[in-house]
């Protein structure tokens, strides 16, 4: 008897790349808070993805990305800092003069969001970031192991906490300024 041809699962990584790269970088950025490192990690994630054909590619991507971000934090931090410093130095030497006010303002904005995010629990933050990265509830459930029904609750709590924390930061800033 003839065996049916083996089922092959093909993942169109090109399509996913185009649709997801931006969100993945954002997601990573909110973990490492460095645009370049986020881009690096995103590239690394996609590079690794090429070898795989998971059932749920997007969720899998974010899973890998989150792991990479966490692992990178554990690796030789000093060496990376050194390299990053070198990069930053040469960037600034070779780059245009920074836009002082626009840049400073943007950095302040980002910093506030970062501080607000840090006030969330790790799980709440993770789920919120995954949602913001465009994952659906089933995808979030697949990646985090959270029950589908609990995701809404978690998001509700995370969002409220974020808004509270951020508003408090804005308020104190305005009072100072």
């Amino acid at each position, binding site marked *: 008897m003839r065996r049916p041809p083996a089922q092959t699962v093909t993942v169109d*990584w*090109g399509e996913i*790349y*185009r649709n997801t*790269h*931006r969100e993945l*970088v*954002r997601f990573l*950025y909110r973990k490492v808070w460095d*645009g*370049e490192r*986020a*881009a690096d990690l*995103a*590239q690394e994630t996609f*590079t690794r993805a*090429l070898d795989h054909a998971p059932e749920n590619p997007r969720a899998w991507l974010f899973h890998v990305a989150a792991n990479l971000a966490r692992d990178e934090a554990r690796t030789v931090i000093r060496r990376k800092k050194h*390299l990053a410093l*070198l*990069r*930053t*130095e*040469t*960037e*600034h*030497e*070779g*780059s*245009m*003069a*920074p*836009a*002082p*006010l*626009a*840049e*400073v*303002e*943007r*950095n302040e*904005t*980002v910093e*506030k*969001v970062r501080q607000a*995010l840090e006030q969330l629990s790790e799980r709440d933050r993770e789920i*919120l970031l995954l949602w*913001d990265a465009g994952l659906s*509830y089933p995808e979030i459930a697949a990646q985090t192991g959270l029950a589908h*029904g609990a*995701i*809404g*609750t978690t*998001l*509700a709590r*995370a*969002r*409220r906490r*974020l*808004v509270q924390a951020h508003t408090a930061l804005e308020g104190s800033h305005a009072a100072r*300024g």
Partner: protein
Amino acid sequence: MRHVDEGLLHAWLDGELPAEGADGAEELERHLVVCPACRARADEERRIRDEASAILGGAVPGSLATPRTVPLPPNDADRVRRRDVGRRWVAIGWAASVLLALGIGWTMRPTPRAPLAVDVPARGTPAVEPVPVAGSVPSLPSPRVTRDDVPSAAAPDLREAPTDAKPAPAEPVAAPVAAAPSVRAQRESPAAREAVPVEVETSAERAPPAAVPPPPPPPAAAPAAPPSVRLRAAAPAERIAATPLPPPPLTGIAGGEAKTQVRAKAIVVRGRVTDRTGRGVSGAQVTVPGTPHRTISAADGRYALVLADSTKAAADSLRVRATRIGMSAQTRQFAPSAADASTVDFSLTDDMVSLEGLVVTGANSSAPEDGVAWREVERDEAERRLGRSLVGVPELPLLGIELGRMEGRAAVRVRQQRADGSVLSLVQQRAPRTRARSSRAEALRRAVEERGGWQIVLEEEGLVVEASEPVPADSLRRLSAPRRHP
């Protein structure tokens, strides 16, 4: 009646509730119809959800251009162009340069205050060794990138010639070309039309300057490229050869387009800008008048300018000029042919009141200070009453400082003398506190318009300044230049 629990509400808002079932969307919506309390809660939760999204939206890297993926034909795997990004960067870069040109705050005090512009990690040696690769490959001329970009107002710093593959600061997130086996960056330099364009193959985008290999034949490569970058370049290259996924092209090629030229070593002018006390002056603009070469001094005052050979060939001696808002300008001569690297130092003296973040919008307006009783005051008092340092146009003599009241709030009028003898007055007043930060950002990016008379509106840190006359100062003239460029 069972009210809706917030988890379900959010799931519903997110569109993630199944349509049917006890916890389904239809059931929930039916309930909302009859329960005003839950409707109100739904509105509130929607507001929270939207606000959370907006907040998160602020946490993004400077630029999020997805590296464009193009299906690369197998025999053309390394020919990728990025033109749009260059142009966009140029526009942003112009705005950045303009903002910087005027965005350096400086007050006449014994201890210079660190200007807002240099809010970056202290630079190391601003001078960049010109093309270290040249040293390692003596037989091959090293490629030079001359980027004489169209908006002269934004003429980017040519020091990045050795680092021509660097992403611009406006796009800190650039897909590392390390993931791409090799990418050709093609640029054009309008100022050096006679040059034969040469394609430069860059193997690592964010490697330090040494990573610009000479053009084909096979480059001696970039031995100084950091190992980590190299590794990344190696692995994906094989993969990409095997899979249809194309590598991301070079993003954020610093500054528009410039033809790379095969040249002898370029001229590097470096030096230090100091004040009268010998302290380094950061944020000073160092330019070669008549050319687009331009750079900014680092925190310790040091700078480096890499000049295109066309510049060198054009003149036996060049002038280098250092200016800084709040300080007098200084011009010095040097002979480019004398040495490959020339040192030109500047010593600037304090000159003027500060100028911070100027936005120019055009409008016909009568002098805003009409009908106000002005009295002459000392600068200290004016700044005390205003609550911040004063603003003035660089390099214009100060005629007087006056205090008055406009719309019930203290206002200061700074009067300066323009080159033609007429008087420029800058009326400065704290903006009402209700001005939201987002409108400030928006104001700073406003394009320059010209509708007859000029009204200069400075909006920064809650300060509104209106100037009621055309301002011919150099820095402001630069603002009008970029209108040619989108």
